[in-house]
């Protein structure tokens, strides 16, 4: 049996959980085992239909824990895994997925493999996983008694099977006092205005080449509907932009229809943040910059001249926000 930890909100299972289910189903198929899932919190049983549609036969619903509590959830995963006798536990590569599984791994005294993109099941699990934020690929072998792994976010495609709703089984973990020491206290809404980076169709981004002047790029973003402003780490380090704007390995991962990096050289750590972009149009003074090799289109010129010219041209053609 292969057990998948899934996460959900009122709208159902989240995308990264569906991706984790796709990889978990592949593992289960290779091992000739059924796929089961564990979900927490109020409404856990409501995702049975969607889980079934993604290959889950049985859904273990834990509704006794009201607030998110990583260690308690980790304990519940261990107990559920032991009760059902699973050969693998697979979680989505989110902050919550990774921490729950890390707690479980520590309690089971096995290693968790993080950011996995592919598994070949044999005597052991032959894994492909990401290192250095995806700039290096690791092939490794996991030989634990129970194989615990997280699936790298947005690297595996989710796919529905059209299966029947999963059978729901309530699971009540037996918790120790200390398990509830860390619990979600509250959620704060961000006061950042405009389109969130992760949801923008167009992302215009500035790097060290802006020399700290983002005004033209800001004006361009305002002219384009559904656009957001991003930046490279160099610009954040200089204190020109807040870290929330940073795209890359240690920043946001984005997937817009078009990404417009201006004055950004295209370092690998930057590119892993925008590899989900469908198109890239680079603005750079240096025709040899790495970004030119990675872009679909490029303008070799000073961004402080090109960005206003684009904004003017948009206005001339009647495109205004």
């Amino acid at each position: 049996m292969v057990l998948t930890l899934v996460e959900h909100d009122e709208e159902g299972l989240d995308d990264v959980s569906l991706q984790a289910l796709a990889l978990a189903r592949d593992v289960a198929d290779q091992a000739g085992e059924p796929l089961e899932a564990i979900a927490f919190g109020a409404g856990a049983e409501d995702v049975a239909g969607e889980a079934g549609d993604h290959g889950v036969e049985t859904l273990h619903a834990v509704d006794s824990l009201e607030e998110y509590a990583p260690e308690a959830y980790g304990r519940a995963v261990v107990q559920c895994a032991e009760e059902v006798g699973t050969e693998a536990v697979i979680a989505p590569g989110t902050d919550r997925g990774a921490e729950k599984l890390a707690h479980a791994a520590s309690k089971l005294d096995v290693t968790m493999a993080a950011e996995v993109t592919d598994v070949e099941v044999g005597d052991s699990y032959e894994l492909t996983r990401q290192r250095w934020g995806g700039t290096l690929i690791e092939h490794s072998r996991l030989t634990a008694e129970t194989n615990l792994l997280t699936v790298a976010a947005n690297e595996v495609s989710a796919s529905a099977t059209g299966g029947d709703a999963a059978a729901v089984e309530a699971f009540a973990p037996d918790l120790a006092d200390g398990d509830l020491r860390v619990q979600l206290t509250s959620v704060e809404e961000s006061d950042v205005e405009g389109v969130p980076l992760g949801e923008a169709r167009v992302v215009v981004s500035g790097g060290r080449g802006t020399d700290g002047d983002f005004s033209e790029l800001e004006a361009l973003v305002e002219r384009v509907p559904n656009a957001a402003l991003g930046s490279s780490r160099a610009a954040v380090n200089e204190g020109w932009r807040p870290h929330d704007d940073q795209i890359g390995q240690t920043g946001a991962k984005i997937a817009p229809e078009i990404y417009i990096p201006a004055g950004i050289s295209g370092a690998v750590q930057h590119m892993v943040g925008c590899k989900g972009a469908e198109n890239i149009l680079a603005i750079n003074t240096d025709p040899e910059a790495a970004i030119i090799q990675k872009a679909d289109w490029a303008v070799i010129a000073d961004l402080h001249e090109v960005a206003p010219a684009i904004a003017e041209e948009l206005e001339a053609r009647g495109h205004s926000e």
Partner: protein
Amino acid sequence: MEILTAIKRVPETGAKVSLTDDNLDIDTTSLGFTFSPHEECAVEEGVQLVEEHGGNVTVLTLGEEEATEQLRSAIAMGADDGILLDGGDAEWGPAGTAEAIAEAVEESDTEFDLLLFGNESADAANHQVGVRVAEELGLPCVTGIKDLDVDGGTATAKREIPGGSEVYEVDLPAVITVKEGLNEPRYPSMRAKMQARKASVAQSEPDPREDDLELVELEVPETDDSPAEILGESPEAAEDVVDVLEELEVV
């Protein structure tokens, strides 16, 4: 406050990396070394907390003897002293690393109020050492933190989620793993770097343990490096840029 921050020596890879002949490691013949951005923020946070509340920051690393260089960089940022767990050239997986760190914390004469880790190391990205250390020591743990506040015996830690942040309140002592963006790490002055050379670094040699994640091979992913279509070399290219935007129907 007594604060411990854990860091890891990793190759500095601003550019594309190449591998050693056996494909088991990054070729570091022409690379410098550093510690991860997340961990720089952990050190900075420790130093700021001590500036605010008083106390000491101890920085710890498990690695080869050369990792003393990274300890001294952290000391130059304001940490008070260092601990080197000399792991030699053995392979240290996340379980063994966490065990060795937890043991060092238990054996230390200092009672730490706060243990700060990077959320994941830049190189191996195993996402679990902080959590495992917390489990070994029976401490509460919050991960992926981008905002931290300590008031008396309580830490308030925030983690980013789409559209906002999750807030966690935990009693100290606790383990907290942090992400870049928590603060802006300072650049040490020349004077601080010189002084750091003299700071005390304690050493011990932990026993490695077998890990059940075994490296088979590394690979540099293929990238599509076909050159871009050059739309122009002057602001006049703006017309072609807008053509592209119109074609993609984003304006």
